[in-house]
């Protein structure tokens, strides 16, 4: 294992860094639960659909952003290719949904 440059002891610095990241992820989780509750509450209150639908869609997008960047580490270094793949997927998603929904309008 000596030839591996990545190999080093888990020193207290690294442990502290891991703990710090964990703390951020717990805050992320709390926010995700909070957003979920707002979305369900808004729908159960029965407010007008023109207001509720954009609100719950925005909450979903923010939640998913948290999931990708904090839980799946897309904010970390060396995640350019994963980000390109996921944004490529999101681009296709936009095209597909636009196409399929537009078909049913005509």
């Amino acid at each position, binding site marked *: 294992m000596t030839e591996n440059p990545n190999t080093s*002891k888990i020193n207290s610095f690294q442990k502290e860094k891991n703990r710090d990241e964990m703390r951020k992820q717990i805050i992320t989780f709390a926010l995700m639960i909070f957003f979920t509750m707002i979305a*369900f509450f808004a729908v159960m209150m029965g407010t007008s659909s023109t207001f509720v639908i954009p609100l719950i869609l925005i909450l*979903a997008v923010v939640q998913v952003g948290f999931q990708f960047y904090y839980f*799946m580490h897309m904010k970390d270094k060396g995640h350019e290719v994963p980000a390109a793949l996921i944004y490529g997927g999101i681009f296709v998603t936009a095209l597909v*949904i636009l*196409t399929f929904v537009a*078909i049913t309008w005509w």
Partner: protein
Amino acid sequence: MSQDHSLNPETMPQDPSKATMEGKHKHLGLWIFLGGETVLFACLFGTYLALRNSTAGGPSSQDLFGLELVFLMTILLLTSSLTSVYAIYHMKNNDFKKMQLWFGITALLGIAFLAFEIYEFAHYIHDYGFTFRSSAFGSAFYALVGFHGGHVAFGLGWLITLMVRNAKRGLSLYNAPKYNTFGLYWHFIDVVWVFIFTVVYLMGMVS
């Protein structure tokens, strides 16, 4: 794998899942797979959005859905996403037992989620006669939500196999990437569910 990859505090790299070339490739490979999965679910979501009002006189989304059950399922899956984050945290600190414990909790939460989903589908079929063949809405609904449920079932099989196979091996540079790729897959399942509960269930109750 001719080298001994078992880890101890002296040889522990900062991130054992990406310390080897094989590990790096597995990480990238899983992201390529997730890019493909995004497109797959995009098609299912597009179909659902196009067909969700085509009920053919059968039950509509407002007749069927109950928010309490969906809320419970959402909390279960979100929490299982956090427990797998905990598991990976313990992996980075080279604590194999705690990693297995938290992945075990993840598996239990996933099983609970799947049980509720099976109950939900059985409820629709028996109490409403709402099946895959009832209407275009029925086909699109079961295709989308069922495909997600299938992903959860596959993920559970993956996780349980991984945990049982490596139970006596301990953490090594060989199996750390395997656990890490599973963690990423599991978060992606949760991402898809966030859109399902928003687009299918919540929007189905509003309009």
